[in-house]
């Protein structure tokens, strides 16, 4: 901020995540940055490739900036060069998993209004199935183009830290996925907080598990860059075969893993440590869904010297807003806290528009009126879900909506988890109404515009002021670590010509589809859904009904179905 070459150069304001890369490039150009099972890139190799791709993309974009660049993504280092190429070109990247059904990818590209799609050679077959009329660029071809440093400098000069860095899609209840748009500043804030809190340094070796279209991976990528560490993209297949996975962790000397809970659970399910254990791990962080303490205890028994950290937060607040460093023993039936907020972020509970204070178990003031900007979907309350299989939850039998939420709030200081601070995403791309619903004015602040994000998660405080996740407020579920709007699954089911009607319930960690049509057709149904939805969104169980029960309003009786299927009826 004191100008080029001035004595305060070191303190200049960081505007872009690219500065992590540029900084490391000066200090450790020959160090390994990203690897996968085929490729190893040093900082210099990666930066060179990303800048050439960036120069080429800038020409393709003809001077337009802050535009979406969709990048086909897979379990290799290749898409990472595409991401950074997009950023060097002054635009933002949108990771699109190439294993997604073509129909869903087409829908995402349409939502984005993307003009450019960056792909790899292996994506050619898929590209033929897409409904996309923009320009397709191939990574290897872009990387052949010459570097145009003056062009990149001009682009960087015009950038601000509020410019978007990426959009990551999450499930949307109307059947259209939502692209969460996140700025450079939010990711810089997250990365700085992580570095400070978890003491990453040049010896940190990250083992990336999360796919790049899942924001858990954002922490791997930018933490590695910021601390001048190394990140290995672990081949997907290793996660099915613990012996192979452990060999890999040991061979690469991986000491830091930031994984989805589901990945840690697989190791426990398969008793993965029965013959061999990882030798170099020192920090294990997990997020995505509630960590069953039984799973955590399995890991702790085998790897007691490791620091374990529970992370919490939705994509809309840039990965995580709270953390809990596991600092005591937990019984298998206890619940792990989600902990405390990171330093530059406030996390608080609202009941309607009223604050729920830690420790008191009471609402701050007595008036009660539900605020108009919650992101719960009105009308969907018949099938609220949550309680992802963890014990220790109070009032979990509560089936209904706002009223019981308020009474819960009074009893045990529960409320909707809300977040304010730099971590808030810019919004949903090309979706002003959805953005206004979820990112709304802080009801506790009448004096100036201040956005908060209402997570739709219900939380509570314990006597020490630590936060706990209690349940979901609406019909959005967490299944195998993925956030899913059951409404999106239903929309896909109901779009099939031979289906009369279908509704989804979430029961015992399973997506149960109840459908009505001429005759049972599970196989055909799943095959057709597989063309529209990623595998993790497919129903775990399909139940055929000649006639689905209706309630007195003539709607499918979700409450009755839920009771019948969970054996309560």
């Amino acid at each position, binding site marked *: 901020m004191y100008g080029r070459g001035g004595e305060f150069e070191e303190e200049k304001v960081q505007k872009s995540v690219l500065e992590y890369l540029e900084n490391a490039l000066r200090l450790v150009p020959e160090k390994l940055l990203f690897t996968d099972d085929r490729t190893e890139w040093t900082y210099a190799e990666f930066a060179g490739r990303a800048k050439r791709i960036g120069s080429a993309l800038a020409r393709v974009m003809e001077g337009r900036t802050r535009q979406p660049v969709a990048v086909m993504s897979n379990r290799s280092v290749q898409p990472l060069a595409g991401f950074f190429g997009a950023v060097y070109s002054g635009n933002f990247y949108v990771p699109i998993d190439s*294993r997604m059904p073509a129909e869903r990818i087409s829908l995402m590209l349409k939502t984005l209004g993307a003009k450019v799609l960056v792909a790899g050679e292996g994506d050619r077959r898929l590209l033929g199935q897409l409904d996309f009329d923009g320009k397709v660029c191939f990574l290897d071809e872009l990387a052949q183009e010459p570097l145009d440093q003056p062009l990149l400098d001009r682009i960087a000069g015009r950038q601000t830290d509020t410019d978007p860095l990426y959009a990551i899609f999450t499930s949307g209840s109307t059947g259209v996925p939502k692209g969460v748009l996140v700025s450079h500043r939010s990711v810089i804030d997250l990365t700085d907080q992580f570095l400070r809190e978890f003491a990453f340094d040049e010896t940190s070796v990250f083992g990336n598990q999360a796919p790049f279209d899942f924001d858990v991976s954002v922490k791997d990528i930018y933490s590695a860059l910021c601390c001048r560490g190394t990140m290995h993209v672990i081949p997907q*297949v290793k996660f099915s075969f613990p012996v192979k996975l452990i060999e890999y962790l040991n061979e690469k000397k991986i000491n830091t893993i930031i994984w989805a809970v589901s990945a840690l659970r697989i190791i426990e399910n*398969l008793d993965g440590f029965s*013959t061999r254990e990882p030798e170099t791990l020192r920090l294990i962080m997990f997020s995505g869904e509630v960590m069953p303490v039984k799973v955590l205890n399995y890991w702790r028994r085998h790897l007691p010297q490791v620091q374990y950290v529970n992370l919490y937060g939705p994509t809309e607040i840039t990965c995580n807003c709270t953390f809990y460093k596991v600092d005591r023993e937990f019984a298998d039936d206890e619940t792990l806290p989600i902990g405390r907020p990171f330093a530059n972020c406030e996390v608080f509970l609202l009941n309607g528009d009223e604050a729920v204070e830690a420790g008191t178990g009471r609402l701050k003031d007595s008036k009660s009126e539900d605020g108009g900007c919650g992101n719960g979907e009105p009308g969907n309350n018949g099938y609220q879900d949550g309680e992802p299989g963890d014990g220790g939850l109070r009032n979990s039998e509560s089936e209904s909506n706002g009223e019981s939420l308020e009474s819960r709030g009074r009893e045990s200081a529960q409320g909707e988890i809300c977040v304010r601070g730099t971590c808030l995403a810019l919004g949903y791309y090309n979706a002003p109404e959805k953005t206004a619903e979820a990112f709304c004015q802080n009801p506790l602040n009448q004096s100036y515009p201040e956005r908060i994000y209402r997570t739709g998660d219900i939380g509570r405080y314990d006597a020490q002021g630590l936060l706990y996740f209690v349940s979901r407020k609406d019909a959005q579920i967490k299944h195998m670590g993925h956030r899913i709007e059951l409404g999106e699954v239903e929309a896909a089911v109901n779009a099939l010509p031979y289906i009369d009607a279908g509704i989804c319930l979430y029961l015992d960690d399973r997506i149960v589809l109840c459908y009505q049509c001429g005759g049972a057709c*599970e196989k055909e149904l799943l095959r057709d859904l597989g063309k529209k939805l990623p*595998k993790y969104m497919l129903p775990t169980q399909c139940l055929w009904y000649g006639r689905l029960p209706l309630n007195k309003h003539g709607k499918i009786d979700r409450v009755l179905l839920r009771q019948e299927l969970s054996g309560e009826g």
Partner: protein
Amino acid sequence: MKEKLMAILEELRPDVDFPAQTALIDDGVLDSFDIVSLVGELNDNFEIEINVEDLLPENFNSVEAMLALIEKMQSEN
């Protein structure tokens, strides 16, 4: 035994044509969640205990490979 295995596989992934597949793992047809469920089902249905040392990609790439694994586990019992 093959029929029983086929029934388990059909139930697990109705969308996959198992007899035609020879690279279920290498091609990423089965993912880690499938493997976890499958191992549980095989253990229960064939009264075997597949341990991590036998949990290798080559034992799950095809129906034949799985049958061979089950037979090996049963003979060891």
